[in-house]
């Protein structure tokens, strides 16, 4: 448990957070009370244990994945396959569907449920081909004026020989560059692991959300521990140090709102989790609706230009 002074600091932090427009999207959901209860819990107790709990829940093998949400939130889903150059990466899905009555394009990382599917989907770790497919879907969205939804759940872009030969770094860079150019509304939500470059490749959005028990990291806790502590076993310490949980990401201004999950986590009640996610996505889209394509694009770039500004440039 945090000490008294720490608690005081956190409480004032929370009251400041409540006053910020950042939470507007969540407030509109009618889930305010619930969210604040959860925020109270998470923000007032960001103990190392709580942070690690987020890491574990984010990786829970029963957690709903992208296609579980697609099934519950989108009608007339038509999945698109292939990057039209090399192949079809099953670790990243893309498609067209109807969300709250309008056509949208959705891209999302996809892990597998059983051993066979996990292997086929490469544990959700995308190759450059996956980002190629995502970019194709994004261009389609832009051409037709369909809003873009992006669900993020990736341990990291795949670290393999072929992935490098096919240009993993360049693919991640170009996917972001394309998102910075789109003239349609983009809403991204981290629904599990937001693992580093592999995640940011599809997260350059107008509104960025995180589910309550998801994590967003620059490097995996194990990777960070291996480098800085020279011992991958120190992952808990690393996670505590770099604070990948939703509450901290909100506080740092990296995300715009936290999407609440059912009491014991999204895996406990996928239907309810989907409903809460759907509400948050719909509200975020609504917030962006009135803006022109050029304005969206301009604001999106300003958003990322000013995230985490260093003190001297504030």
């Amino acid at each position, binding site marked *: 448990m945090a000490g008294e002074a720490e608690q005081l600091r956190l409480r004032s932090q929370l009251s400041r957070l409540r006053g910020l427009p950042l939470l507007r999207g969540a407030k509109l959901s009618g889930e305010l009370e619930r969210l604040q209860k959860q925020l109270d819990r998470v923000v007032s107790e960001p103990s190392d244990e709580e942070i690690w709990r987020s890491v574990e829940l984010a990786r829970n093998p029963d957690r709903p994945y992208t296609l579980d949400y697609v099934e519950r939130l989108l009608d007339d889903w038509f999945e698109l396959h292939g990057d039209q150059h090399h192949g079809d990466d099953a670790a990243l899905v893309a498609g067209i569907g109807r969300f709250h009555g309008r056509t949208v394009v959705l891209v999302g990382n996809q892990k597998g449920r059983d051993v066979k599917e996990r292997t086929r989907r490469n544990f959700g770790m995308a190759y450059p081909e996956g980002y190629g497919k995502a970019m194709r879907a994004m261009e389609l969205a832009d051409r037709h004026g369909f809003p873009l939804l992006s669900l993020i759940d990736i341990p990291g872009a795949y670290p*393999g020989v072929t992935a490098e030969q096919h240009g993993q*770094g360049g693919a991640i860079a170009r996917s972001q560059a394309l998102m910075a150019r789109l003239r349609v509304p983009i809403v991204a939500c981290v629904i599990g692991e937001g693992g580093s*470059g592999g995640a940011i490749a599809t997260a350059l959005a107008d509104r960025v959300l995180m589910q309550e028990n998801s994590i967003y990291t620059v490097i995996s806790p194990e990777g960070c521990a291996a480098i800085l502590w020279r011992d991958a076993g120190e992952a808990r310490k690393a996670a505590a140090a770099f604070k990948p949980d939703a509450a901290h990401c909100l506080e740092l201004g990296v995300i715009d709102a936290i999407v609440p999950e059912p009491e014991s986590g999204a895996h406990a009640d996928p239907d309810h989790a989907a409903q809460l996610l759907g509400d948050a996505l719909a509200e975020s889209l609504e917030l962006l609706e009135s803006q022109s394509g050029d304005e969206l694009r301009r604001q999106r770039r300003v958003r990322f230009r000013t995230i985490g500004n260093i003190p001297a440039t504030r």
Partner: protein
Amino acid sequence: MSERIDVSIEHRHAPPEDGRRHPNTCPKCGSHYRDDELAEHLNVCPQCGHHFPVHARERIKQLADPDSFVEEAAELRSDDPLAFFDLRPYTERLAEAELSTGLGEAMVIGHAAIEDKPCQLAVMEFGFMGGSMGRVVGEKFARACEGAAERGAPLVSVTTTGGARMQEGILSLMQLPKTVCAVEDLRDAGGTLISVMAHPTTAGVLASFASLGDVLVAEPGALLSFTGPRVVQQTTREKLPEDFGLAESNFRYGHVDAIVPRPELRPALGRLLRLFADGR
């Protein structure tokens, strides 16, 4: 086949492991040089052509016309947004890096001329915490893009980096989209980015602005991979090709436009700057 035999002979005389080797001893052929000898050869081994690292200030001296470089945003310093503490506090690492490099951060920006053509420069320093990109590096790069747009001069970036700076947590990951957005703004303003990738250019920097140049140039032997060979080996247990992730491999697979040896870099940049200027 004869090449193979050469390699084995080379290895028999291989210099000691990296940790014990003197920085002026060539890791490839074992030749040793005085500082002034190396500097005279642009830090390229006259014996075997191995490219030694180049500090940011030295790189600027090598590339820019004499006395043309004017530094910008030199006053920016990182703070410690997460109060990050691993085996040592982040603030201590920052202070130490500044002391040992004489630089405020891992990137130096400013405007200059190369072969009489004006340009903006953004040059990284590997000696400053592995050339890692935190908020100040991201900010400096973004300002370099803005400076290039305002002056209507191409931006030349020279990267040498291990990627994002872990000690700034998720905020360091945010430097990827930040620098990408800066490049897109520069493009919209009709500007040019020439990306020179030196050893190593990996992870978060390769996955952002370094890969977005209008022209992508690599130095010979530079490691340009999103994931480094050690991690790939550990994770996949695949046998790595000998030239895994190197500039030469990237060239073969079509990810860089040219591999330019250091002595030819300044003339090559001069040629590109003239070409882009004449097209305006």
